[in-house]
């Protein structure tokens, strides 16, 4: 019928189509905007400006949420892997343990005990050793008192040396001679001139002393800086810690100080002779630790320190899935210490039960609410909202009164003769109590979204279905129910996510079989102070919720969830 000349694509000459095609073919470069820039870039720029403006508008809220919500939560969750305390408190020991094989079941060598002596001594002066003890006690029973005892006990080592040096020359227990031996003359002058109010001139070691007495210098420097920064005392007036005397002994026994000619050279040379004499009493670090507590010469404590020496640890996460770190790698805990797996399962299971009971109880109410005449519906609405406005604790305690064995329900049942007086039902301090109380408390969160969805379903659909011959059931099931599903979805998400993190109600009515994982999290936050473990449990809970949300989105589709309209 059509000839070539009239078919649209065959027309030659200037038509709009041809012009476009020509433009495509020509490939003359990008289309330009009025000001000569490429159109694409110009459009992008306009869009970016728009986006920036939008961002600026929400910026206050965004910053608020970031600062007051996301950042603290992030910080808390970060604790689940954070573990710097070991390497910060025991830096030398951690370094000395690098070559130690934790699986060897042997006690490490003397160099580790030496490092531990210095570390624990400094930590004890800073009062950090007990903190580390509590941290390690989560992993190894007894670490707490081990460190507490050692903080005091380690003084004994240095005192052995201090006493001998002091017997030789009393200046060894005086502040001033030490400062002259160790301190830079300029610093001494500046420190002497210090007026007692402004900042103290920071302690400086004398130029060559670190070569003559390396350990002593390092130790004295730590002492002097600590006195200045933490105590606000002048090192010119404070006798050094006994750890400095230990360091001095070690230096003198290893090094030759005869070439030393700085201040207090005589004193030092005399001490050197004393150390060289056969009568000089020495203490081995290992023996001293053993004397404080025999646990120090078992491999367990060193394995624990070694395992927890990295700055970040998987230990908390392993703990929260009933596993533990061992020198051989992660292993399951003993059966009688496993609890978190059970609690996670139970939390999931009970949250699901609560969600379904809320759907069962809430659906008819929401249906009534949206189909009754306004006056009656309003009254019903108030009945739904009234408990919602009542304090959570009041409602939970009320359930306690209702459900307990001498409570209202049992009394009524006994009075009616349905239950024997000595066979009263146990309805509280178990899972049943938790489910009942939480279903009641979370019910409004299910009813309200359902109601707002149902009230938008046009009644004409139902009438149309009926007029086409459907039975009541078919009308409901095939026409009404599918339209109300988004309400169920919204309510279920709300109830499920709320119940999975619920804490106070299970605590009060849950007994032992009805408690949730959140109760353990609370316990670790406020009682055992194991915040790392609490953070790990919380992170797992958060990930589980996000995963479920994702799965829900894939199965139901989050677009199908409506909170109203």
């Amino acid at each position: 019928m059509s000839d070539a000349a009239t078919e649209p694509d065959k027309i030659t000459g200037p038509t709009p189509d041809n012009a476009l095609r020509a433009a495509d073919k020509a490939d003359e470069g990008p289309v330009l905007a009025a000001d000569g820039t490429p159109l694409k870039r110009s459009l992008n720029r306009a869009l970016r400006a728009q986006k920036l403006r939008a961002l600026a508008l929400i910026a206050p809220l965004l910053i608020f949420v970031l600062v007051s919500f996301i950042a603290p939560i992030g910080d808390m969750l970060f604790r689940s892997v954070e573990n710097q305390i070991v390497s910060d408190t025991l830096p030398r020991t951690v370094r000395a343990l690098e070559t130690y094989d934790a699986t060897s079941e042997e006690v490490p060598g003397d160099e580790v005990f030496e490092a531990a002596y210095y570390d624990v001594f400094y930590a004890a002066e800073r009062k950090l050793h007990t903190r580390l003890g509590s941290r390690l006690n989560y992993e190894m029973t007894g670490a707490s008192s081990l460190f507490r005892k050692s903080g005091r006990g380690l003084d004994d080592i240095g005192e052995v040396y201090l006493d001998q040096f002091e017997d030789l020359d009393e200046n060894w227990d005086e502040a001033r001679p030490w400062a002259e031996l160790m301190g830079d003359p300029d610093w001494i002058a500046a420190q002497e001139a210090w007026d007692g109010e402004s900042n103290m001139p920071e302690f400086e070691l004398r130029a060559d002393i670190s070569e003559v007495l390396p350990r002593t210098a390092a130790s004295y420097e730590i002492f002097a800086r600590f006195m200045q920064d933490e105590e606000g005392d002048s090192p010119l007036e404070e006798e050094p810690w006994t750890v400095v005397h230990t360091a001095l002994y070690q230096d003198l026994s290893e090094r030759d100080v005869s070439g030393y000619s700085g201040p207090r050279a005589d004193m030092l040379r005399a001490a050197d002779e004393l150390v060289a004499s056969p009568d000089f009493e020495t203490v081995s670090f290992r023996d001293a630790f053993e004397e404080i507590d025999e646990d120090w010469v078992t491999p367990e404590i060193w394995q624990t320190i070694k395992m927890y020496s990295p700055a970040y640890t998987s230990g908390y996460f392993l703990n929260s899935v009933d596993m533990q770190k061992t020198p051989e790698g992660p292993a399951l805990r003993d059966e009688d210490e496993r609890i978190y797996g059970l609690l996670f399962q139970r939390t999931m299971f009970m949250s699901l039960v609560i969600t379904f009971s809320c759907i069962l109880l809430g659906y008819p109410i929401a249906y009534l609410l949206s189909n009754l005449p306004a006056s009656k519906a309003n009254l019903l609405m108030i009945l739904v909202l009234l408990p919602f406005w009542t304090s959570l604790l009041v409602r939970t305690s009320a359930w306690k009164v209702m459900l307990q064995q001498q409570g209202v329900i049992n009394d009524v049942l006994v009075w009616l003769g349905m239950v024997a007086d000595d066979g009263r039902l146990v309805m509280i301090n178990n899972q049943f109590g938790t489910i009942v109380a939480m279903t009641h408390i979370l019910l409004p969160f299910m009813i309200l979204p359902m109601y707002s969805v149902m009230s938008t379903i046009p009644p004409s659909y139902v009438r149309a279905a009926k007029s086409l011959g459907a039975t009541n059931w078919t009308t409901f099931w095939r026409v009404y129910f599918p339209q109300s599903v988004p309400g169920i979805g919204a309510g279920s998400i709300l109830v499920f996510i709320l119940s999975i993190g619920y804490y106070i109600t299970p605590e009060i009515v849950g007994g032992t079989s009805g408690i949730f994982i959140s109760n353990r999290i609370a316990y670790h936050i406020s009682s055992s102070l194991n915040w790392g473990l609490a953070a790990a449990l919380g992170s797992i809970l958060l990930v589980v919720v996000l995963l479920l949300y994702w799965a829900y989105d894939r199965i139901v589709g989050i677009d199908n969830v409506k909170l109203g309209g």
Partner: protein
Amino acid sequence: MKLSKTLLATSALTVAAAGAVTAQDMADSMTLVSWGGAYQSSQQNAYVAPYLEMNPDVSASWDESSAEAVAKLRAMNEAGNVTWDLVDVVASDAIRLCDEGLAMEVDHDELLAPAPDGTEASDDFGDLIVSDCFIPQIVYSTTFGYRTDMVPEGVEAPNDICDVFDLETYPGKRALEQRPINNMEWALLCDGVAKEDVYDVLETDEGQDQALAKLDTIKDEVIWWSAGADTPQLLADGEIFMGSTYNGRLFSVIEEQDQPVAMMWDAQVFDLDGWIIPAGLPEDRLARVKDFVRFATDTQRLADQAKYISYGPARESSAPLVSTHAELGIEMAPHMPTDPNNAENTFLYNYEFWADYRDDIDAKFQAWLAQ
């Protein structure tokens, strides 16, 4: 310039004259942390109100957070903003706070008033100073109370700790605290372990299993409590036959509320409660707190506290001064956990043991509970 110099000079003179810190250098408000309830009001009546009367410019506010004091202090310390001035904690928490560097170490003789006869504070408090940070106030005990109307006919009222484990003679529910401390010791005692061996046995895995096995025999009949008010409530409702709680709570159920409940002092576990001063307080607040603590822990004030609650004063010199209840008018001495008649068989909370074993045994205990 001149005026301020004169002022400075005058105030310097005043300081020199007083020989101590003057009121101007002390903060005029304090935040005290305590447990709420009858215990806090005993503190309020016995020494906070009198102190405020003596210092009308000062105000004191309460924070009822002692149960979470360790966690909250740690959080405050990390945030660098400690808002509490004086915190009432149990001894084990004081030890932990001291370990964590969150509580201030004090020199008891310097900070606290000597006894009227001149005995130094550290001797007057004696062994009760369980930590360098801890300023003891009271001795309390955890013990059992039982419903007198639920004792089966023809049976002697329970008076032995092992009656708790005897379901045949004394059928009925029990309330125990939801933690291993005390329960494990009681279980071992009633499983034939001698009192002096209890902690040696409890150190071992077998000992822990033994204690849990003993608790297993009554597990079905136990309601586990976590707040001190639970047991008194359960007793008053008739929900349980016997239950453990703090002796002061039982006193109030028995004497103040007149419930058919009696005490079973056997194997009561002594514990201590006292103040700690948070570490790192600014000088003016610290000065105020020190002034208050010196007053609040002197011999008379601690004896006064016993008028309002049946907890024993921590000072030896206060004991003879304990008088009658402020409202009921009854003699308080026989209701004290330290009264010789009540203290025939006692236990002292082993702080060091539980500091070490708490995490480990608690894990086992909770796993056992959840089964």
